[in-house]
């Protein structure tokens, strides 16, 4: 789930100042689940802004899906609603805002702050669970991601900043990811995975902006990271090291 929170109303009103007529656009997917940009929140926002602005509303099923965004925007155009407004207030994550901004020919303004890919414990309580590093290690770390949950993103933790299984970042309150990994690997009898030396992370894989072109070709599926380097000398060394450790 993409975790978002609503921006303070004053900030939203300030960004809307240059405009007079707006559509408030919601998101039917993540922002609906975390109750920041669903039907209900769009309606509430409209009530708050109406009077000062002419307000129209729409909830796009998945505004980050270019196909859906285009289809819904065409619908709005057909109804002539795009002619009545001069800006879009988007209650969705940054991916949604940018997709809509490419489709709609009016300024798209963010109404939410986007935080992370995470787990919803309950509404209002969320935990980051994935940093989208493009190279998943969860199979070796008992389903606990050190890239995300270790404050240093260490591959060979824990570090010296752990006391009683708690992390130095944030005052020894949060669990050390590597302690959690150890506990769970023990439970599964896979302690051998813990002693393995993990090679330096391939940050080339996550050099942004990233893109994937996974269109099938005659030779099979093709997945590319346009900005990522091909197998480098560095990488080759890592692979041999990895084999030695096994």
């Amino acid at each position, binding site marked *: 789930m993409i975790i978002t929170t609503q921006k303070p109303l004053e900030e939203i009103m300030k960004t809307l100042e240059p405009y007079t007529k707006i559509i408030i656009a919601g998101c039917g997917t993540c922002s609906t689940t975390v109750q920041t940009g669903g039907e209900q929140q769009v309606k509430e926002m409209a009530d708050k802004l109406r009077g000062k602005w002419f307000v129209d509303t729409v909830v796009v099923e998945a505004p980050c899906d270019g196909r859906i965004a285009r289809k819904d925007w065409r619908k709005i155009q057909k109804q002539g609603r795009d002619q009545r407004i001069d800006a879009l207030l988007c209650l969705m994550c940054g991916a949604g805002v940018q997709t809509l901004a490419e489709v709609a020919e009016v300024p798209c303004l963010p109404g939410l702050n986007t935080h992370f890919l995470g787990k919803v414990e309950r509404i209002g309580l969320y935990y980051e669970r994935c940093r989208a590093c493009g190279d998943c290690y969860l199979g070796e770390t008992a389903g606990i991601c050190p890239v995300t949950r270790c404050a240093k993103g260490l591959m060979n933790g824990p570090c010296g900043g752990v006391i009683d299984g708690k992390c130095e970042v944030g005052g020894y309150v949060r669990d050390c990811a590597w302690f959690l990994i150890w506990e769970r690997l023990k439970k599964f009898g896979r302690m051998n995975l813990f002693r393995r030396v993990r090679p*330096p*992370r391939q*940050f080339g*894989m996550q*050099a942004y902006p990233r893109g994937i072109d996974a269109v099938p070709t005659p030779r099979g599926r093709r997945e590319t990271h346009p900005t*990522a*380097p091909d197998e*480098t000398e560095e990488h080759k060394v890592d692979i041999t090291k990895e084999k030695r450790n096994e």
Partner: protein
Amino acid sequence: MREAFSNLMKEIQSGKFVFTGELEPVKTTDISSVIAEAKSLKGYVTACNVTDNPSSYAAVSSLVAAYVVQKETGMETIYQLRCADRNRIALTSDLLGAAVLGIRNILTLTGDHTLLGDMPNAKPVFDLDATLLTGMIRRMVDEGKDLNGNDIEGPHPQFNIGVAANPNADPIEPEILKVVRKVENGADFVQTQVCYNIDKTLEFLRMFKSFKVPVLVGVFPMRSYRVAAEFDKFVPGVKVPLELLDKLKQVKQQQISKAEKREKYDRINIEFFAPFITELRKSGLCAGCHIMSVHYVEITPKLLAEAKIERTLQKTSPLTVAKSS
């Protein structure tokens, strides 16, 4: 006018048409060749840039190289500092180190992306950018405080801050505004990317004139056709003029001795760049030239002689080089 701490800044402020050179330490533990190049440039250029992991290829620390060059040769250095490899803590710490070692000029750079270098899987830092780094150093110099306002003990560091600009940018307006941001954040002087087109360069200088910041225009005499072709191919945003490239290519293809080739290469460079420098000087729009001919230092004296620039031995104050204990 801000205080000049370095000989470079003093010469610029005195109205002299100044020259700077460039030194490029590589991935090595022996920088004797860098020192030799610095020695042969002495008396011809006022100061030398020392590059910091150029193109994101890990090289000898530019701080160490800059210090050793100053100590061994007396050549003043312009310590280049990239944001690609260091966060604000490391930048602050290196800058304090530079102050201790008697470095007086810093050139702030954002730096090429780590993907472009020889360890493409490194984590790129970019905690700050060149504009913010400039502001950070300004505060260290003026107020004796770090980025967060924490006091720095001892006397304020004494740096003159240079920034980079690219007169070849197209469109040029955002480039000018970007450099203005750096100037407003505290830059003392500007060194530009390599320029070949005199009209374009003068246009940039004219647009930039009202900001009253001294500009050193980058010129790049090319040692051989290979160097020129590589530069043309790999340095984004700069094109070597076809005519010049062709001339160098012809030399490469000729069946003549190395010494003859060398002489012809030199001739081509001098014929192209000496009038370029003369023109720049005549315009009165720039403070000098930054000659970036790394590993081709022998061209500098010849070029200056041809451009009829006589270098009198510098009478500015001797370098403050920290004593090694």
